[in-house]
């Protein structure tokens, strides 16, 4: 039987190879009867005329492998791949699973070499700024395999807003901020020969080297010498290795100097100094941080005497609170103020604050609809709330609703089960519903009933705070 000669172009000629495979399979030509040649001027040696043939169904893993291995520089790659395809289609469909098979092993090594070269190209390309007004960059790189087209999309994803060119002996790639195009091979002289940041970069490279750990073998395993000449920092390598031993000896010989001062006073003082000492200082920190979820007009801080006996903690400011910059001034706040007065608690004597300090909402037309803070958002604000309480040391902390309970206790707890007295860390606490819950109830009868229950909670809160005062009981609950 005659030998069929298939000619492919230099480079990763996936197109011709795919076409040839279809035809060879259709013709049932076994690998030993096929020869693959690489030539820039095909047709000189009476090549086979490869005619169109139907696509061949091969497993995904095999076609992925082919796409990688055609990039390899080994001229034998096409013959090896065709051998693989032939076996897969002739009774060994799961051949790739047999990683110990000599052919699979060899092709796998080739694929790995291609992937490694791709990875190294992504890592070792060094752009230089081109002279001129406009910011344009170019790099000269010498890959081991035909990987330019496979490597280019990475640079597009990364340097989308930059104008860049990568020049190689196998072709060039250009990104003009809109389109990626490939051009002819280039030479080193086409790229700029310096960049103003290279010296700084080399200095950085020298400084991160630890002379006590010198290990050039490990370096060369990951950064083979063939890449060095296009990486500006590698010029420093010989000097670094040469002087390493000397530098370490000097460090070791040098007498250890006794620490000038071992007392940690200054550090401890600095840690104390950074803590906010007043609510004003704390609020300034919160204001500076800005909202976690964008949208709020301003941070809404707690309001009331700084040494109030009772602190009420709500969920987060609403629409009105956000605009006015004060807590509990909307409909729910008005209801709370009314109920407090009926229970004998003057709003002016209590301190009202929220677990979350910024309004979060969904815009629906002209209206801003309150949206509930997530557990993560509540915890984001939690350290501030804890500091707020620490600065006030109130006698009783009232959690209005589940969000407040989560903020104060760190755990999600349903109100129905935990309503009543509670302990929040070092503080005496009380759990009740949020007044907005009362506003949302559908019918008047339930509303009245719920309001009465809320009122009786407030009466107990009032009594508890009083009892604390009269008996002289310690303000901090025993843990």
């Amino acid at each position, binding site marked *: 039987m005659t030998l069929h000669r298939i000619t492919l172009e230099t480079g990763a000629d996936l197109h011709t190879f795919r076409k040839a495979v279809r035809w060879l399979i259709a013709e049932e030509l076994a690998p030993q009867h096929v020869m693959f040649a690489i030539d820039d001027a095909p047709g000189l040696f009476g090549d086979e005329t490869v005619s169109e043939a139907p696509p061949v169904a091969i497993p995904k893993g095999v076609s992925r492998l082919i796409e990688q291995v055609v990039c390899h520089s080994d001229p034998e790659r096409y013959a090896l791949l065709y051998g693989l395809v032939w076996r897969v289609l002739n009774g060994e469909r799961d051949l790739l*699973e*047999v990683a*110990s*098979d000599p052919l699979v092993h060899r092709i796998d090594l080739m694929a790995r070499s291609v992937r490694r070269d791709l990875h190294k190209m992504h*890592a*070792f390309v*060094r752009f*230089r*700024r081109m002279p001129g007004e406009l910011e344009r*960059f170019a790099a000269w790189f010498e890959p081991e395999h035909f990987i330019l087209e496979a490597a280019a999309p*990475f640079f597009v*994803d*990364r*340097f*989308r*807003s930059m104008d860049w060119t990568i020049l190689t002996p196998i072709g060039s790639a250009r990104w003009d*901020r809109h389109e990626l195009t490939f051009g002819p091979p280039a030479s080193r002289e086409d790229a700029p020969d310096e*960049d103003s*940041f290279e*010296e*700084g970069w080399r*200095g*950085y*490279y*020298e*400084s*991160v080297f*630890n002379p*006590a*750990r*010198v*290990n050039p*073998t*490990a*370096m060369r395993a*990951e950064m083979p010498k063939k890449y060095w000449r296009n990486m500006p920092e590698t010029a420093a*390598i010989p000097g*670094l290795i040469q002087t*390493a*031993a000397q530098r*370490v000896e000097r460090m*070791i010989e*040098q007498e*250890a*100097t006794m*620490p000038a*001062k*071992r007392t*940690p006073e200054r*550090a*401890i003082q*600095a840690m104390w100094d*950074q803590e906010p000492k007043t609510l004003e200082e704390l609020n300034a*920190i919160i204001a500076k941080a800005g909202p*976690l979820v964008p949208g709020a007009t301003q941070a809404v801080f707690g309001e009331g005497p700084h040494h109030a006996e009772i602190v009420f903690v709500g969920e987060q400011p609403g629409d009105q609170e956000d605009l006015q910059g004060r807590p509990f001034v909307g409909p729910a706040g008005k209801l709370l103020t009314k109920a407090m007065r009926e229970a004998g608690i003057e709003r002016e004597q209590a301190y009202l604050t929220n677990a979350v300090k910024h309004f979060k909402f969904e815009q629906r037309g002209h209206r801003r609809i309150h949206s509930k803070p*997530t*557990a*993560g958002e509540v915890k*984001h604000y939690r*350290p501030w709330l804890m500091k707020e309480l620490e600065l006030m040391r109130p006698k009783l902390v009232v959690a209005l609703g589940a969000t407040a309970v989560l903020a104060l206790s760190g755990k999600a707890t349903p109100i129905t089960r935990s309503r009543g007295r509670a302990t929040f860390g070092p503080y005496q606490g009380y759990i009740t519903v949020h007044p907005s819950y009362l506003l949302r109830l559908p019918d008047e009868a339930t509303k009245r009933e719920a309001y009465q229950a809320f009122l009786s909670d407030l009466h107990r809160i009032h009594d508890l705070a009083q009892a604390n005062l009269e008996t002289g009981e310690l303000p901090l609950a025993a843990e």
Partner: protein
Amino acid sequence: MDEKLSKKLRILADAAKYDASCSSSGAPKRKSDPDGLGSTVGTGICHAYTPDGRCVSLLKILLTNYCLFNCAYCVNRRSSNVKRAKFSVDEVVTLTVEFYKRNYIEGLFLSSGIIRSPDYTMEQMILVAKKLRRDHGFRGYIHLKTIPEASPWLIEEAGLWADRLSINLELPTEQSLEQLAPEKDGASIETAMAQMFERIEEAREERRHFSPAGQTTQMIVGADETTDTDVLRKSATLYGHYAMKRVYYSAFSPIPDSSAILPLKSPPLMRENRLYQADWLLRYYGFDVDEIASSSEKGMLDLDIDPKLAWALKNRHRFPVDVNRADREMLLRVPGLGARAVDKIVVARKHTTLRLEDVARLTSGLKRAKPFLITADHHPKARLDKLDLRERLIEKPEQLSLFV
């Protein structure tokens, strides 16, 4: 780049180089916006290697090496006489952007000495990250070393801008912390790690950005008398309790202007290497600390052979293992067989019966594996019980230490 900035960069890179927990892995995949700069890939990229074999991935620098603290192992402790410098926020931003544009780096790894106060320092670091993200549309990798002594709300904010936050434990036991880092407190470092873990988990559930690449830490090895078993026990706790992505081990190496209470000798590089191997056994090979401890001597790993081989030599009754029949768990315990090789064996043997030459194509550790393996054409027989097996399997060190 002007000379003043170059000088600062040298000082502040030199001051940061002893921190090894600096990979650029684990960030969610991102691409740059049309007007922005930067992307991330899952596994990270090493853009260069220095002659110590270490990877240069991120621009690893300190904001400043002035420091109020006085940790004996640290080159930047306040009683050290090293040169000092401080970057401005804008200088760090410029360096990051310009280095990134030239494809030198994957992003920024910023740490700092503590100046004025922990909060002030943390705020400056956050400002760098914020400016990169907001003013430059920077989508590359940002790793911030958090200061455990900083206020909790600042850690919260740092997590919004960084891909990874980390706190270095540095010393594995309370005693060593007390001795070498008088202002640090192990309990507060671990509390900070626990809080970080909780926040990362929550944010993940809520699909919000908070240090999406998780947290890592570093322990210094060889600065005091702590044993390998103690170090590994600590690591197991850190992986178990706080879902650490990585625990890095850093062989203590002599530093310029060293403190008198530290050992001035070559860094125990082989010990560091063995600790990493043992760490992998804990995480990917189904070993527990007690098993590794039981094949150590006085709590120290055998420096001549890898910890899996050390375990196998002390547990010869569990071998030989038949590659064509044994389950995955047991194959993972065969010296010289990595997890990848084991997976390939398990798949390949469905189609074929493996011979020794087949196994040779799947692993580079055949020499170590051979006495413990049965293949279609090989059985170690009495060789497994030979007394000199350990000596035969010792590999000559690839790299002689500088001091030998």
